[in-house]
């Protein structure tokens, strides 16, 4: 009985020790995990912040770039002018269109081109001439990378002058394609 009780005590102690070791080891592991987690969280947060900052910077740059393109378009204007009875793009007109091209490539917006003529000549012939001008602009845009399905060319002929009155000073303002 005594021997048994000694053995039993020893076992108890052993179990207790094992238990204690077990507990101690468990406690040690828990402490390590929490620290790592916090560390990871901090790292993730830092990374996110860094990414956000980077994104913000990218956005800022993109926005600034977009703004630059928009400013360039605003500076170039929305009108391309032509010679009498001609639909040939002039160098000044190409410059205007290049500004619009740079911006158009950054979005998918549709573009409407309204072709106009001066008051000289007949109305239906001018309607055809206005369309030819609008198409000359459309061709320039599509050849340079704007999908043609985004572009619509509409002619108003001589029906919608911006400068009323006769003489070259008025006529030259009316022979135009408006980019909308």
């Amino acid at each position, binding site marked *: 009985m005594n021997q048994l009780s000694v053995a039993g005590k020893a076992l108890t102690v052993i179990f207790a020790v094992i238990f204690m070791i077990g507990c101690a080891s468990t406690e040690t592991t828990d402490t390590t995990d929490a620290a790592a987690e916090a560390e990871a969280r901090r790292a993730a947060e830092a990374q996110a912040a860094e990414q956000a900052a980077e994104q913000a910077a990218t956005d800022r740059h993109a926005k600034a770039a977009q703004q630059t393109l928009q400013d360039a378009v605003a500076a170039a204007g929305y009108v391309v002018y032509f010679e009498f009875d001609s639909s040939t793009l002039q160098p000044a007109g190409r410059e205007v269109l290049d500004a619009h091209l740079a911006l158009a490539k950054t979005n998918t917006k549709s573009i409407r081109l309204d072709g106009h003529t001066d008051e000289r000549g007949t*109305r*239906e*012939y001018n309607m055809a001439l206005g*369309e030819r001008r609008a198409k000359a602009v459309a061709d320039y845009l599509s050849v340079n990378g704007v999908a043609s399905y985004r572009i619509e060319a*509409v*002619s*108003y002929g001589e029906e919608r002058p911006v400068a009323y*009155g006769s003489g070259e000073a008025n006529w030259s303002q009316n022979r135009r394609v408006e980019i909308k």
Partner: protein
Amino acid sequence: MKRVLIGLFLAAALALPVRAELVIEITAGRDNPTSIAVVPFAWSGWGSAPEDVAAAIAADLLRSGQFAPVARADMLGLPTRESEVYYRDWRTTNVEYLLIGRVSGGSTVSVEYELFDVFKQEGILVGRETGPVADLRMLAHRASDKVYYQLTGIRGAFATRILYVAFTRRPGADDNYQLMVADADGARAELVLESSQPILSPAWSPDGNQIAYVSFESTRPAIYRHDLSTGQRERLTNFKGLNGAPAWSPDGNSLAMVLSRDGSPDLYILDLASRKFRRLTRHYAIETEPAWMPDGRSLIFTSDRGGRPQIYRIDVVTGRTERLTYEGSWNARASVAADGRTMVLVHRRNDAFHIAVQDLERERLQILTSTALDESPSVAPNGSMVLYATKHDGRGILAAVSVDGRVKFRLPSREGDVREPAWSPYMGEP
């Protein structure tokens, strides 16, 4: 409250755009016009006469450039019946012809008239025109037609109508386009269509009951057909690109037009019954402004296939095409008078755009006008006069010139610009 309401009604009434009525200014006539006295017609209806029939007839004859109507103050008598005519009175003042008449009736009126040759001392025409009192002025124009035919041998075109577009710019508000129809003398103007978007190229059906035109009301050009008596309208085309220059065939069954749906502007013929389109030209150049030859077998049109716009003719069956104009570097918008010979067109010379005629058989081109921005010529159904649009004192006006260039008059609007005239075919029996 009542005052406020009346004020509102007044404001609404004042906000309505003024109808573009035309007035006549004669600028050139023939050297030795025939002297004719059109004596005020007797009126036997209730109240005062709704229309001065004699004045309307005298104005018609004056506008032809071939007659010099006698002023009423210079008339020695005012006969309204043959028994009151004293030839000697008229002979002493060198009047060659005398027209007298009477108007009677109520809601239906009758205009009776008699024409006398003063030197032969005999009556040469007796006529009567009957119709609703609202059309009394048109009855007067019909009497003018008969008198004109009796004295010239040419059918008169006074009892016809004209279409035109009136444009008014309104600062701070939308532009205003009005398609109008009026008598050939500009009177009795009625609104057909009003829009803030362009209206152009009005064209008559051969029976004068319908019209076709181009309207931008959808912010893109489309061709419409419009019945003038019912006001019913229908959109005929709405293709991508140009939809323009409608021209009714002489048999009334089809419309020639310009479409650019297949690339560049080309001529198409729309069969109005089957609604089928037939492409007539296939060219990368501009083909536009089709006009039918009177026999309906071919069309004349403007094309810049040679580098600059010139007039061509195409056979609608075979497609065979020939060039018609060689004089000058710019000819457009041609149409041919009912005789099938006289072609009217816009011709550019020394940077100015004039109305010109070309005899299709002799190929000689003659410039009729001296103004610089002339366009949209439209020939009267009897081939005597050409109505066209031009600019005068910076405003768009209508003007007319005889095909021999000797008679000219202007039809300016009281307000805004007028343009795009289209002279109707004959209305009713001769």
